[in-house]
């Protein structure tokens, strides 16, 4: 069942900006999750007279991690070791890493590395980086050559994405290729931030609808469908999953004025 889209926003990489403040971040290992552990941590901060800027806490299978950023402006140099010592005495806490802002007002998290999605490393691409890539390559190569290259890049990356989808599916006990497409590939496009996708399966064909497709939103307006990278990704991914040639056409495109992007794949 899918509820209406609420579009919750989750910060994926942690950059804390608090102009003029000296900031300290802590990454706290939770070796035994229990009720009240976060309250114990926030009580320590309150007792030390510290303001918490942000906190993220994650737990799985009784273990996890807590990342938090506090404002230590005006506190003595010993404050970080005081905080660490008090955290260490909390039941269920393991290792504690910390990072102090080198520039007042800015703390860019380097404790949470690498970014992982199960056993797969991930890294993030900004919309601005994508826009610069596409606009400058188009200016250098011309649109036709750019489209051909970006399609190929998408195709090869799509095969790589699909390795990940197949791996996830296998772990969940999903083996049938069509189930991999239906239950993994479609969801992963949204789960990776590219766009909200949904899928309809027909006779030897698939209709893939993508709303808020990053490529379309970052591209200049166009007279015709122009999401070549996405088309390449879908083609490469389906080719890998189905182990057979796939032909994909983009039939609607947000960059061309449609409400969403739509791809029809025939195999």
């Amino acid at each position, binding site marked *: *069942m*899918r*509820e209406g889209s*609420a*579009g*919750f*926003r989750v910060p*994926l*990489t942690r*950059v804390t900006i608090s*102009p003029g403040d000296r900031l300290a971040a802590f990454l706290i290992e939770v070796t035994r999750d229990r009720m*009240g552990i*976060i309250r114990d941590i926030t*009580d320590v901060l309150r007792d030390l007279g510290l303001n918490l800027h*942000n906190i*993220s806490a*994650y*737990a*799985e299978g009784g273990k996890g*991690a807590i*990342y938090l950023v506090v404002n230590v402006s005006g506190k003595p140099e010993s404050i970080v070791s005081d905080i660490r010592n008090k955290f260490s005495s909390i039941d269920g806490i393991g290792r*504690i*890493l910390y990072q102090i802002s*080198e*520039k007042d*007002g800015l703390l860019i998290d*380097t*404790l*949470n*590395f690498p*970014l*992982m999605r*199960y056993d*797969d*490393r*991930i*890294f*993030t*691409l*900004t919309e601005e*980086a994508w826009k610069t*890539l596409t606009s400058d*390559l188009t200016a250098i190569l011309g649109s036709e050559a750019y489209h051909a290259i970006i399609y190929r890049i998408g195709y*090869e*990356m799509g095969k*790589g994405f699909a390795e*990940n989808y197949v791996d996830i599916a296998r*772990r969940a*006990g*999903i083996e049938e290729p069509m189930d991999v497409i239906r*239950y*993994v590939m479609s*969801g*992963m496009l*949204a*789960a*990776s*931030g590219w766009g909200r996708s949904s899928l309809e399966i027909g006779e030897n064909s698939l209709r893939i609808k993508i709303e*808020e497709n*990053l490529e379309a939103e970052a591209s200049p307006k166009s007279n015709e469908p122009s999401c070549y990278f996405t088309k390449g990704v879908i083609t490469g991914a389906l080719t890998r999953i189905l182990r057979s040639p796939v032909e994909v056409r983009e039939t609607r495109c947000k960059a061309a004025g449609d409400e969403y992007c739509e791809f029809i794949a025939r195999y």
Partner: protein
Amino acid sequence: MTRGSPEDRYFPIEIPILTISPGKKLSIFYLEVLRDRPGILAEVTEEFSSRGMNIVHSLAHVEEGKGLIIIVAERPDGVNIEELKGHLGSIEGIGSVEYEESHIEGLLIPYHLFPFLRGTVRLVALNAKAITSLSEELSKILGSSASGAILFRIGYEMGKGFVIGHLKIAERVGIKDPFEILRHISVPLYASSGYGIASLEEAGGVFSLRIRENFEAVDRKSKEPSCYMTKGMWKGGLERIFNRSISIEEVKCKARGDEYCEFKIEIPRG
């Protein structure tokens, strides 16, 4: 920047973008936090445990008193979801409550965690296998020289784009000097974005950029330094920050068997 003892190894927070729990029916709840207070997460988790629902993942993020709690739980038969949602929504400080079920037993890929943002900047996630696939296939099709040139160019353009965000952060924090932007923003953001752990040293006007666990060198073997995309990213980014041409060479590479990747960078003083 200090980290704690040198022996400490990273234990990264996994973003629960997906949950695998073979054979289980899974549900995900998104709870809006309107007013954070001590004990709010405990009250939320109590609602699940009192109904015999095992919590597989939980993620709570709060900033300046507001935020989001995500709970992924196994869903036994007989649980009244609407009743649970009602109770969750009545917890003091909690606003809206949304819910999603897994489409297939054993796997839940959330639909509502979209888009990814860093502040107001939209992000997408790439996985390491995608880059490896791209690099290997381009090399097979075009040869290593041509594929290296393409990867370099892709990196170069991306690097220029990344720095747009770096400059915005610099402006907000009041950093103007390009060397400070490089050291305090671009270098740590490289790790924060998952690409690799970067550090920068200067000697005699030449910068050494050292990158441990660089994304481009993972699971790849090469006879010579070959992180072309990385080289392009840093050249494009640095030329944007400094507004002049810079030279960069990769002198060590993990793909070649070195301990880390290293780039020598010459930035003419303006």
